[in-house]
């Protein structure tokens, strides 16, 4: 399918959000991803997968791309592609790390590490678009305040019924009483929907983050069948 870039927004110094119009695409479920294929003018192609951050069924669709040093595709998507450019997409793909408003009142705990917030943002936007009252809570781990995606929108959501906690592993915002550290069991105990409420838990981020968080959740008594994860190393 052909996708056309319809808008772009700088998210952080190393990340950009792109919106695509894809007339033929089937409506996505929150949490799904697409494959993007770039073609050079000599026929060389390169393909990568990106999680959608837009709400379920949204048009245009949206992704946020983090630039990886020495990456092949990500520098092009973050720095070069412009509004009006076209590329090929396939999808939406994936049916596991997904949330649908029809699932009802069971609370949802989102736990993001770095750029892993993207598919979880799709769930937050889907909840909002559907007018759902399902309790949602987001725990978002980043290295420092300059690396936060969707900061204005998260601040808005925090004033409209979603509990949003952002924690920093290297540097906290100026004036903050927080200590820079990785999210550990103490944070999980203080800042997540308790296991006794049997929430869905969606964990997305780098491998080490997801391993540490999901091991801790199991030790805290969360139901393994309701923990859904997506791990990614650098997609260059």
């Amino acid at each position, binding site marked *: 399918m*052909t996708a056309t870039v319809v808008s772009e927004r700088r998210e952080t110094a190393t990340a950009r959000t792109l919106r695509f119009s894809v007339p033929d695409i089937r409506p996505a479920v929150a949490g799904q991803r697409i494959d993007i294929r770039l073609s050079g003018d000599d026929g060389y192609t390169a393909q*990568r*997968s990106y999680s959608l951050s837009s709400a379920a069924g949204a048009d245009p669709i949206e992704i946020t791309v983090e630039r990886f040093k020495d990456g092949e595709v990500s520098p092009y998507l973050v720095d070069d592609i412009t509004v009006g450019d076209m590329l090929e997409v396939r999808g939406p793909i*994936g049916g596991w790390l997904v949330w649908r408003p029809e699932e009802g009142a069971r609370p949802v705990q989102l736990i993001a590490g770095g750029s892993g917030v993207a598919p979880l943002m799709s769930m937050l936007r889907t909840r909002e678009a559907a007018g759902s009252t399902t309790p949602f809570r987001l725990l978002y781990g980043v290295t420092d305040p300059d690396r936060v995606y969707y900061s204005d929108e998260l601040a808005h959501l925090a004033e409209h019924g979603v509990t949003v906690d952002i924690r920093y592993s290297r540097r906290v915002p100026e004036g903050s009483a927080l200590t820079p550290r990785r999210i550990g069991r103490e944070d999980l105990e203080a800042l997540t929907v308790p296991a006794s409420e049997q929430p869905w838990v969606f964990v997305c981020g780098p491998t080490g983050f997801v*391993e540490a968080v999901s091991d801790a959740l199991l030790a805290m008594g969360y139901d393994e069948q309701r923990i*859904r994860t997506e791990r990614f*190393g650098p997609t260059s």
Partner: protein
Amino acid sequence: MAIFSPGFRGRRHERNPDLPPGQYEEHGFPVLTAGPTQRVRTDDWKFTLTTETGESKSWSWDDMMALGPETIDTNIHCVTSWSKFGTTWRGVSVDKLLADVDTKAGYVMAGSYGGYTTNLPMADFTGGQAWVAFEFDGAPLAAEHGGPARLLVPHLYFWKSAKWVNSLTLMTHDQAGFWESLGYNMHGDPWLEERYS
């Protein structure tokens, strides 16, 4: 349909003929799993084979090791488009597990600790194409990569190489496993780009 990305150069000079279409070379070893990592001790590990007539055989960890592991040097290909070259594994060929088994099954469902499943045709499974692997690059296979033992079927996309594998069920008809029932291909040949159904 020709859509070009003006100015996109990519890494065409590094293009390796061993790289299937749509794949790129990854030097790390990314982890993709749908849920928490399973932590299984080899003392508790048990592997079961069930035929299409319901007969079953089991192996303990020591039984499996006693079957005679071999070294496998291979490339691996993940459906999310990374490939990793020159990986070395130790594992037991599934041919050894099937040696004394009377079967006419055309398909097999691999099952894992944690409930993961994946289906494969026997034509892609026997004859030195699949192993129960427990060592990666000279060290015991880490839990996040499927240790203590995972299936290794390197000529198919890597979701077929089930982590934490503990069972094989022989089937007369093909049935969809975990990812296959969520839209992924029943076969999964990277050279044919059989990613999705």
